[in-house]
């Protein structure tokens, strides 16, 4: 996690970014407003906020799957667009998005094929990645033969196959049950520590965000803004004991309060401010 000499310490640099969605030339929604964020090499950063706060949009901006209306997004010192063309991303979505006609192994090989990696190296890399997510014995299975958690692990293996500079994860465990989710959290941490990959992780679970991250970015809804960045000073490696550590609860509380202050938890304060705005004609 230490910075190598001669490389930029920050992997992601977002400055002054607004994102508006327009229809017929008219601004319909302001999804993000005045976003500044820097993510350093090897960090694990979670984006958390109420639904509709633009956290997924922010992730997609970093991945150049959408473009900002204003401001700039740089990845590894170049525009996000160049980074995407340079295939510096690994993406994991909420659904595993595996191709059912490919075996587990061939799904992992997909990005390597797209990059034109020679066959022998593809085999080798796929094997390594499946070993990393502990699915060695399932390489010749088809996705439908795996459980949801296993499918998502295949998706993670695929995302890491190109050894990307940055791994973008959009609520990857949102569809899993609580038990599986906690196990997957442990897996992701282990992979993060083994590979040293920078991870940006979107979630709406406070415990998940705190357990995983080195920093939690708290966002407020419409227009999405960063209201607070919480440093998580919990020791590594984190495990089941971490979840029972009093310091863990302190950070969870801190994040929860930050969310509430931003109107994110729909508490009385948040509601009142929205109603007042509406009454003053501030909305619509």
């Amino acid at each position: 996690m230490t910075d190598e000499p001669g490389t930029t310490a920050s992997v992601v640099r977002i400055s002054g970014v607004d994102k508006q969605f327009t229809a017929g030339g008219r601004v319909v929604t302001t999804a993000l407003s005045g976003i500044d964020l820097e993510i350093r090499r090897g960090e694990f950063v979670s984006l958390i906020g109420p639904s509709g706060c633009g956290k997924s949009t922010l992730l997609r901006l970093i991945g150049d799957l959408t473009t900002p209306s204003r401001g700039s997004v740089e990845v590894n010192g170049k525009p996000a667009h160049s980074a995407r063309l340079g295939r510096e991303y690994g993406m994991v979505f909420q659904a595993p998005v595996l191709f059912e006609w490919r075996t587990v192994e061939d799904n992992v090989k997909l990005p390597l094929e797209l990059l034109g990696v020679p066959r022998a190296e593809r085999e080798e890399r796929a094997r390594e990645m499946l070993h990393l997510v502990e699915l060695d014995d399932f390489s010749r299975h088809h996705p439908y033969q795996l459980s949801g958690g296993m499918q998502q692990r295949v998706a993670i293996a695929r995302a890491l196959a190109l050894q990307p500079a940055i791994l973008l994860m959009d609520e990857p465990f949102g569809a899993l049950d609580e038990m599986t989710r906690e196990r997957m959290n442990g897996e992701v941490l282990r992979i993060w520590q083994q590979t040293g990959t920078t991870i940006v992780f979107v979630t709406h679970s406070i415990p998940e965000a705190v357990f995983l991250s080195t920093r939690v970015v708290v966002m407020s809804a419409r227009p999405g803004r960063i209201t607070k960045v919480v440093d998580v000073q919990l020791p590594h490696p984190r495990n089941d004991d971490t979840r029972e550590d009093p310091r863990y609860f302190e950070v969870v509380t801190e994040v929860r309060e930050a969310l509430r202050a931003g109107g994110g938890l729909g508490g009385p304060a948040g509601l009142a401010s929205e109603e007042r705005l509406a009454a003053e004609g501030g909305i619509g």
Partner: protein
Amino acid sequence: MTAAAPSVGVPLPPRPGRAARLGQRFVYYLPAIAVFVGVIGLWELAIRAFDVRAVIVPAPSAIGAALVDNWDAGRWPLFAAARTTLFEAVGGLVIGTTIGLVVAFAVARWANARDAVLPVAVAANAIPIIAIAPIFNAWFGTTNPLSKMMIAALLVFFPVMINVTRGLTQVDPAALELMRSYAASEWAILRKVRVPNALPFFLTALKVATTLSLIGAIVGEYFGGASGVIGRVVVQSASALRFDVTWAAILLGAASGIAFYLIVVALERWLIPWHASVRGEETG
């Protein structure tokens, strides 16, 4: 396929032995076989009990005898007739499928093509085949098998075109997003996502198309052409009041259709073993 002692997830169910599988199959098909044999038996009984004349409905035994007697002898050699009709149907299937595929790829690729071609295709599909058959006979030559092939091709074209277009365009948006995150070219997306996605759609269309091609060929034959084809045998034997031969010819036509269909089913098992329709388990 099963890996050695998978530690987590769902292990594949143990594969039963060959004899056991045959037994299972037999039990599975038993009701269908029973109904089939029962209907034939009742039919035979009813004809004998009520002394129904062969002009109205011949007994199954009479149809069987006509099939054997006229197999390759007499005024209507049935085997040669079925072979010729099948040849026309296959020709039509190939022509219709090829054109259907070409149009589907064009329509899926260019929105302009969709707007230009789809209305015409829909209109062509609305033409009653009975009405167009004599015209095609005139265009391509009544005695030329090509005229029957073109009638079959017209019937085959539409389901192939519509289904393949759907398969090429109805791709999981997340899959496209994934490919975009890898900066994949349109060509790579076509090869690795759209075409495999369209395969099950294509095979479904082909199942319908095989039957349609036989219908097309036989309808074309009704409106004239060389004798020694199923359509002519039906017309001529019926007007000669040899309904046993008529029924035998119909039976042979149906048998060709079933054989045709089974070939596509086998093709399906070979090409898309991963698809829910072939696995025969949880769909979706």
